């Protein structure tokens, strides 16, 4: 089972685990990214995720190709959610299974690291003080001119 998707509904991590699991796999690894209530010391109420969806899907597929090539992992599923997310909601989930633990662990880490670098997805954080901002993980925040 290999699958990637940009979704606009809640992510069911348990279902991703079930998708990759099989009698030949002794190791299942899962990573879930969730919306935190604070970022850089600011209190966050919610996040809007937006994507260049067709490219994000293509980029996710390329990342899965690379993970399979590097780690020999064929059971690998990733979903990234877009839209309005609340605190605690899962924004991304990656599940991998393999006969042995190292490839399962390595491939999950590879996929989340690459998503952070290159999948065209953006998030606007809504802060408790009423402001909002596009997040730039490089540290240079682009003040949104839509704040209000």
């Amino acid at each position, binding site marked *: 089972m290999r699958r990637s998707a940009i979704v606009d509904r809640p992510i069911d991590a348990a279902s991703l685990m079930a998708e990759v699991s099989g009698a030949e796999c002794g190791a299942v690894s899962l990573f879930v990214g969730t919306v935190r209530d604070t970022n850089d010391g600011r209190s966050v109420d919610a996040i809007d995720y937006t994507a*260049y969806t067709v490219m994000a899907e293509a980029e996710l597929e*390329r990342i899965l190709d690379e993970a399979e090539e590097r780690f020999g992992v064929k059971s690998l599923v990733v979903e990234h959610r877009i839209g309005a997310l609340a605190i605690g909601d899962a924004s991304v989930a990656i599940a991998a299974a393999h006969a042995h633990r190292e490839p399962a662990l390595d491939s999950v880490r590879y996929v989340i690291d690459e*998503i952070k670098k290159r999948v065209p997805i*953006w998030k606007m954080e809504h802060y408790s003080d009423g402001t909002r901002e596009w997040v730039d993980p490089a540290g240079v925040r682009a003040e949104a001119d839509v704040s209000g």
Partner: protein
Amino acid sequence: MPVVTVQLFASYADLVGSSMLDVPLAHGDTVGDLLDTIRSLPSASGLPPISRVAVNRAFAGVDTPLSSTDEIAIIPPVAGG
């Protein structure tokens, strides 16, 4: 001169006030040429230095040649995950 429609997202779309930007494209223009042209457009004056361009749904280097049928987007710093 043909015009390509460049897709904008997130902070770039907010800064320009649109999710599309029409950019004149000369025959033989590369991604680098396109970026030079964008910098000269008054409508794009609010954009920060652009680091990444996608052509046909994949990142493309500055030497990549463009045609008017390409799907082109400029990509703000990504923040997925």
